[in-house]
C-alpha cells in the first residue's frame, strides 16, 4: 500500500513533466530536449515567488500558475525563433537544436539563481500526513497525485472534446488543409506550444516542495519524462498517463525490493519495453 502511494506520487510527478513534452511532439514532431530545462525554470520562478516556506497551498498554486505563464511565454519565444525553423529538417538536427536551447536555459538559471542548492518546504495544510485506513500518507503526495489527475483530465477533455483541441488536432494532422478551412495555423501552433511549455512551468511550480533546486534538476526529470513519452507513444497524452503510472509503480516496487539500487528497474523496464514495442503502448499519435 505504501509502495502504491509512493509509486503513484512518482508517476504523477513524472506525468506532470511528460504531458507538455508529449504535446510538443504531437504538434510539431519535435522531441524537445529543453523541456526539462523549462521545467526547472518554472521551479525557480515559483521558488522566487513563495520563498523557502510558502504560506499556504493557494500561494503555492498561484506561484505555479505564474511560473506556467512565464514559461509559456518563453516557450512561444523559443517556438518562434528555433522550433519553427527546424521543423522540417532531419530529426537528429532537431535534437541538437533543442539541446542547445537546454544549455542556454541552464546557463540562464546559473546566471540568475546561482549554483547554490535551494529547497522549499511544503506549505501548511499539506505538510503533514493523513490517516487512510490506518495508513499514514503524506498529504503532499496526495496533492501531487491529485494535481496529476486534474491536469490529465483537463488535457484529455481539451484534446478530445473541446473545440480548441479539435482545431489543434486538425493542424497537427494536415496544416495545409486546416489553413484552407480558415484556421489561423501559425497562431494555433503558437498557442498550443505555448500551452505545452506552460505545462512544464506549472509542473515546476507544483512539484517545488521537497525538491532540491539545482541547475541539474532538469536532467533527472527529463530522462524519466522521455521514457514515459516514448513508452506511452510519442504525442499520445493518454499513453503518457498510463506509462507514468506504470513507471511509478515499477519504481515503487524497485524501492521496496531493491532499496540499494534505486532507479535501476525503471531503466531495465524501459529498455525491455522499447525492444518489444518500439511504437509505445497506444502507438504514436499526432495528437
Amino acid at each position, binding site marked *: 500500500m505504501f509502495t502504491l502511494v509512493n509509486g503513484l506520487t512518482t508517476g504523477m510527478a513524472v506525468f506532470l513533466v511528460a504531458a507538455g513534452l508529449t504535446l510538443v511532439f504531437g504538434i510539431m514532431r519535435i522531441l524537445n530536449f529543453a523541456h526539462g530545462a523549462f521545467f526547472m525554470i518554472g521551479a525557480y520562478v515559483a521558488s522566487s515567488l513563495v520563498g523557502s516556506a510558502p504560506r499556504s497551498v493557494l500561494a503555492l498554486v498561484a506561484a505555479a500558475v505564474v511560473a506556467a505563464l512565464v514559461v509559456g511565454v518563453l516557450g512561444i519565444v523559443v517556438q518562434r525563433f528555433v522550433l519553427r525553423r527546424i521543423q522540417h529538417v532531419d530529426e537528429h538536427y532537431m535534437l541538437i537544436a533543442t539541446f542547445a536551447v537546454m544549455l542556454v536555459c541552464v546557463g*540562464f538559471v546559473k546566471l540568475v539563481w546561482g549554483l547554490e542548492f535551494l529547497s522549499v518546504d511544503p506549505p501548511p495544510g499539506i505538510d503533514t500526513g493523513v490517516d487512510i485506513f490506518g495508513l499514514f500518507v503524506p498529504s503532499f503526495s496526495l496533492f501531487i497525485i491529485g494535481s496529476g489527475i486534474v491536469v490529465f483530465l483537463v488535457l484529455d477533455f481539451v484534446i478530445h472534446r473541446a473545440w480548441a483541441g479539435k482545431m489543434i488536432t486538425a493542424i497537427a494532422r494536415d496544416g495545409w488543409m486546416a489553413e484552407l478551412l480558415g484556421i489561423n495555423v501559425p497562431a494555433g501552433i503558437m498557442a498550443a506550444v505555448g500551452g505545452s511549455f506552460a505545462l512544464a512551468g506549472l509542473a515546476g511550480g507544483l512539484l517545488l516542495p521537497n525538491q532540491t533546486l539545482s541547475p541539474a534538476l532538469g536532467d533527472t526529470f527529463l530522462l524519466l519524462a522521455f521514457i514515459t513519452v516514448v513508452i506511452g507513444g510519442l504525442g499520445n497524452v493518454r499513453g503518457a498517463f498510463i506509462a507514468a503510472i506504470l513507471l511509478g509503480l515499477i519504481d515503487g516496487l524497485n524501492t521496496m525490493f531493491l532499496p540499494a539500487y534505486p532507479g535501476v528497474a525503471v*531503466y531495465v523496464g524501459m529498455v525491455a519495453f522499447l525492444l518489444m514495442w*518500439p511504437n509505445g503502448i497506444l502507438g504514436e499519435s499526432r495528437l
Partner: protein
Amino acid sequence: MNRTISGALLAVLAAALVLLPFWANSGLVFLAGTTMVVAVFALSWNLLFGYAGLASFGSGGLFSIGAYTMAVTLRGGYEGQFLLLIALSTAIGGAVAFAIGVVALRRSTGIFLAILTLALAELLRITLAKIHWLGAEDGIPSIVRPKASIGVATVDLAQGNHYYWFLCVACALLVALCWWIAHGRFGRTLRTIRLDTERAAFMGVDTHRYRLVAFTISGAIAACAGSLFAPWAQIVTPDIGNMMRSTQPILFTLLGGASSFWGPMIGAFLFSAIEFSTRTLVGIQEIITGGILLGVVLLFPTGVAGAWNALVARLADPYRAEAKAKATTLRPVKE
C-alpha cells in the same frame, strides 16, 4: 588547393599540439590532452552518424566501460602490459556494442535508438555508482600512469609529459585508423546506407550487417578513447559516462560538420577553446556554448568544416563550389 590548405593547417595544428608542453602551463597541457581524447571519441561517434546514419545518445557508456576497464586492471597490478590493457578495453567495448547492436539495431533507428542508447548509458551509470568494488559514487582515484614497453624500448609514462606525448601518438594512430575505415570501400558502402538505405539494399548490400559492424567498431574506438583517458585524468567516476559525455561527440560533430571527416575534431578543439576562454564565467559559458550551437544548426548546418570547404572551394573554383554546397546542405525530410 582545398586539400593543400587543409593539409597544411592540419600539420600546423599537429605540430603545435606536440610542442605544447614546451611553452604552455600544465593546465593547458591537460586540457589539450583531454581534447585529443574526446576528439577521437567524437570521431568514433561520427563514424556511426555521418557514415551509417545512426545516432547513438549513449556513447558515453562505452567511453565509461573503456575507462573503468583500464582503471580496474591498472589497480589490479597489470600495469606492465599497458598496451595489452588498451587492447582489452577496446575489445570489451566492441563486444558490448556488438551485443547491444544485435538486439537494438534490428528494431530501432532514429529517435528510438537515441532514447534506447540514452537509457542504457544511464542504467550503466547508476549501476556503477552502486558497486562498492568499483568505488561506488567516488569512483576509482589515483590511477597510476604505467610504463609502456614496445619490443625492446620501455617508456615510463609517469614521468613529466611522457603520457601527453603517448596520447599524441595513440590519438594520431586512432585518427588514421578512422580515416582508413571511413575512406575505404567499407566507409563508401556505409555512406550509401545513410544516404538511401533501401537503394543500398537493392545493390545487394546487407544493410543490417553493415550497421552492426559500424556500431561495433564505433563502440570499440569509444572504449579505446576511454581507456586512454583513465590514466590521463588519474581518476574515474560514474559521471565519466553521464549524459553530458554522451552528448559531447554529438555537439562536436554538429559544430564541426557531420558531412566532413575532420568535422568532429574541429568541433572538439573549437569547443575546448570556447570552454577554456569562458571558464571563469559561471552561466555565461553554457549560454555561449548553447548559443553557438544553435547558430550553427540554424545557419550553417554543414558545420564549420562545411563552411570552410565551401569558402576554400569558392576561392578555387566558383562553379563547382556551388554544386558541392548544394550537394551537402541540410536535406529536409520528405514524407
